[in-house]
């Protein structure tokens, strides 16, 4: 949890932070940045990125190099095409003022859905009722990948299962529960 993130070699390479003009190099640059963003968020278990935040992801203080906001958006766009990013607030917000908060899916909602289903299967909780709170904050999931999962992302994952008819969500806002079939 608190181990520092191991940055890849290119992070110490100043041109990495400058948009390359050569098409091939640019593509390679985008690919490397995408991988870096995913790995960074996975390591720190960040589910959302705020593009205006001055984190050490886009800003290498040792090199005094920073990836420009427009270039960061390009990386996000690259991830979006791969289904690994999504602007919180929908595409409308993205095009209007360029959204600031982005979901980074180092694990997509489908992948989370599979994880949830797997855990429910393993612990023999099919047919039982679980609160959404206990799925991410309860003692039962402590130590598993599910613990600490963002609740909005959990909702996304669960709706994948609901669509497939594998689960049903019920209850009032703030105290919702889910039943798995």
């Amino acid at each position: 949890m608190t181990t520092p993130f191991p940055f890849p070699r290119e992070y110490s390479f100043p041109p990495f932070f400058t948009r390359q003009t050569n098409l091939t190099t640019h593509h390679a640059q985008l690919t490397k940045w995408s991988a870096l963003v995913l790995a960074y968020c996975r390591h720190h278990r960040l589910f959302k990125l705020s593009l205006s935040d001055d984190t050490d992801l886009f800003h290498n203080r040792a090199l005094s190099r920073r990836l420009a906001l427009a270039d960061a958006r390009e990386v996000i766009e690259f991830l979006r095409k791969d289904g690994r990013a999504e602007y919180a607030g929908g595409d409308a917000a993205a095009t209007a003022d360029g959204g600031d908060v982005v979901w980074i899916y180092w694990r997509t909602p489908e992948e989370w859905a599979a994880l949830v289903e797997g855990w429910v299967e393993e612990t023999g909780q099919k047919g039982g009722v679980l609160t959404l709170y206990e799925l991410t904050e309860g003692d039962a999931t402590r130590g598993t990948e599910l613990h600490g999962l963002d609740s909005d992302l959990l909702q996304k994952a669960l709706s994948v299962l609901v669509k497939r008819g594998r689960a049903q969500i019920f209850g009032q806002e703030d105290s919702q529960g889910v039943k798995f079939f």
Partner: protein
Amino acid sequence: MGNNSSRVTAQDKAILDLKTQRDKLHQYQRRITVLTDRETQIARQMLAQGDKKRALLALRRKKYQETLLAKTDGQLEQLEKLTSSVEFALIQKDVVFGLQQGTRVLKEIHAEMGGIDHVEKLMGETADAIAYQQEVSEMLGGRISNQDEDEVENELAALEAEVNMTAQIRHPSLPSVPDTKLST
């Protein structure tokens, strides 16, 4: 959607309510734990500054919060016991239902078999038929053995003599080899 009515029963909703209460208590405990940790920190700081009175105050507050924690622990246990009982009762209900189904099917099969009397009569008829068959076999089998028994015995004696003869020809009795030195 709306194809079928919700697969969530009233009992599920009841269990959800119980679990929501448990979650609220859980969250409350976490809040209190944060407070107790802070009080310990404050106490340490006060001692470092040499303010023993304030440190004592912080520790007293922490003690009070810890009793709150203990009380909520008890309540949590009650809630969890009740939730387990409800869940277990649901399982038992399923078991009873399963038993009902199974017994019903058994009864149906018994009815198809026609009842105990019918089975007894059937067994009796089967035994008669088998006995009849035995008699017939004995009659047929017995006749044959009476007629040919002697002939078969004669054939066996002849074969036996033949076998001994061939054994003699193959291995005629040879003179025994002297085992002492011959006198020349």
